[in-house]
């Protein structure tokens, strides 16, 4: 996992719970915690940090990942404003993840392995999103989508029809807009 994800997590934790909490999480997970955005770090470290956070805050790993994704979006917008500029809606933005967002990520961070999503635009109020990755981080995706909706001041509900965390070979999430 690229260091930038760790930087985002640190930033999200620090903003909401203070920098000490981040120090505590590193301590609990027994990690040295020196991350630079361009570096590559073991996936296990992010998993360990998520677990430590879950324990500390009395939440599930899934809830932590969703929270992280949602909180990360505004930070991403601060860092990469260009990716958000030309869209009038979250839907529009989300649909560019395969064609623009993640390709751009690969340009910035060599060796980044970003997931590919299958989108099916069922109707104008919903999108079905297929996800498949050995990291099994559909909850992060869930959080990102939520965060994206917040940025465009929209309200979405996300329903996991099938999930790799529950034995399915891929995840299917339905994103539904309130209006």
């Amino acid at each position, binding site marked *: 996992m690229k260091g930038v994800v760790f930087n985002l997590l640190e930033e999200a934790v620090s903003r909401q719970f203070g920098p000490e909490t981040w120090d505590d999480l590193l301590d609990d997970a027994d990690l040295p915690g020196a991350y*630079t955005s*361009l570096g590559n770090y073991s996936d296990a470290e992010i998993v360990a940090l998520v677990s430590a956070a879950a324990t500390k805050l009395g939440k599930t790993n899934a809830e932590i990942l969703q929270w992280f994704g949602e909180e990360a979006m505004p930070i991403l917008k601060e860092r990469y404003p260009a990716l958000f500029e030309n869209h009038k809606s979250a839907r529009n933005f989300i649909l560019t993840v395969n064609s623009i967002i993640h390709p751009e990520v690969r340009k910035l961070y060599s060796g980044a392995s970003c997931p590919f999503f299958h989108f099916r635009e069922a109707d104008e109020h919903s999108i079905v999103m297929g996800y498949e990755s050995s990291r099994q981080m559909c909850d992060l995706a869930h959080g990102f989508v939520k965060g994206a909706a917040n940025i465009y001041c929209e309200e979405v509900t996300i329903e996991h029809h099938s999930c790799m965390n529950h034995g399915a070979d891929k995840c299917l999430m339905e994103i539904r807009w309130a209006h």
Partner: protein
Amino acid sequence: MGALDALAASADPVDALNLRILKLENRLQRERAARLQAEEIAEKGLRDLYERQRQLELLETIATKANTGRSVEETFTFALDAICRHTGWPFGNVYRLDDASGELRPTPMWHAGDQERLSAFIERTQRTIFRTGEGLPGRVLQKGTATWIDNVALDPTLPRCHVAAECGLHAAFGFPILVGSEIRAVMEFFHRDVQALDEQLLTVMAQIGMQLGRVIERQQAEEKLIHDATHDPLTGLPNRMLFTDRLTRAVALRTRNPDNRYAVLFIDLDRFKLVNDSLGHAAGDALLTEIAARFAAVLESACTGDVLPTLARLGGDEFTILLEGAIENGEAIAIADRILETLAEPVEVERQKVYTSASIGIATCASYYTDATDIMRDADLAMYRAKASGRARIEMFDKSLHDKAIERLALESDLREALHNGEFVLHYQPIVALADRRVTGFEALVRWQRKTTGDLVAPGEFITLAEETGLIVFLGDWVLRKALQTLVGWQKQGIAASTLTMSVNVSPRQFHQHDFVAGVLSAIADTGADPACVRLEITEGVSIIDATRTAGIIQELRDAGIRVSIDDFGTGYSSLSYLHNLPFDALKIDRSFVASLKQKDDGHEIIQTILDLARNMGMEVVAEGTETADHVDMLRDMGCGFAQGYFFSRPVDAEAARALLAQVPD
């Protein structure tokens, strides 16, 4: 006062500790900000590097394709596709420069990511032609460099600005495809979003433009090779290969549908070889070029929409025309007529007026033709027939010609054999002085004594063929030597006076041999004949081609003591003025004038004119074809010095000629 200053002023140890923590936190903040900045710089550097690398990959992919691609179309389509895919610009398109108008014209080569959405834009693009300076491609053409437009919607001078905006296209760039420093084509790309100038991308595109130019260059070189292989370098007309190709296609088309008619005109210039031999190759080339242009002009005005003409030069002085479409025999002949007419006007070559004519054979489509060779052969045959029946003629092929041709071929091989076997004999016709009826000389005439049949063949049946095939040169040499031998023999035996002359005919082909004079001199030396007794008879046709050269040769012969007469005077093309320039010793009045001599008739006047002319120029005159006593009397009364004809004697063999010499005139 800042927080740090307040704490520093305090003496409290806790304050001192807090101060230290605050300082450390500040330092941490600085370090953090520095790290983020460093990361940002590194990220940007990496991103640029990544872009650059991808662009180089793209350039390399396209360069590789440009080296291996078989055609411009294939390579350009590949490039459009690769560039769109790589850059994510959804629309790409190629214009080619039209040499004649200098405009950029759309091609069927374009790529669209989302055809349905862009259909209006594509449709508009496909029917828009850009002049220099007009629109994006026109600006590329004008500047000669890659050009970028952030947002086409903001520039109403762009012809496609509205339709582009309607289809959601905004940014655009274009670049030239260059061969050397010349623009041959322009490529353009459009993006959905507004985009600021990407200098680096544009640089790579300019390089791609150079690579793609190489494909055009290669194709042009290939096209030139093919063109050269299928065209005559002198006239630029299709050559035999291309002509045969088109004819083959026409024959095939006709087999499928009898409405696809065609005709082949086979054109051979009359006496072209003489022009080439006497005026030189450069003059011959100039003549051919001019004639080709005249033929082309005839076809251009004669062939309307329904008939497609192909004019070709097969080589030498042979031209062919293929007429395809709704062509009837009558039209083919009409076109052949106009071809002949266009030659009526003399061609000026090296400040000389050269008169040419052509013989044309026509073969038209028939169901029994299955390949090009057959119909070409028949058109060729018809042309030979036209040539044989006199110059400047048109002949349609029919089946009987085919049989004639076979006969002709057989005759040619017989003729060669005859030369080899010595089947020729000479007959001699006396030339008589009208004043005292004395035999002053003989004209030697060749006959062919066929071994196989024993028949005696008259010259009319084989001289033309001998002339056409070049056998005449050998035959002529034999005739000259044989005739001189006979003369010398008679003189040695004391039968003939030492002044007796021997006239020998020289054919145009012989005369134009570069070593003609040398050949004559060696025959005289070998036989021991007195040059003063030798008379060479040449026809008017010989003298007309190049009077200066002809005069030179005649003078050379005269310098050697040989006398030269002009044969069949009055039948050819020569105007009387030619005679003034040519140093002939004698003139032979054609038999047709003598035949028309009747008491108190017009025939008189022509002959009288010729006689007066000859007297003025100091030439002797021999009248040919004198058949009656009346002829002889009248000619003598008009002042004609000599005559030959049946009245005196038909041509007879050597033995009979001897006997004539022995007779004393009564």
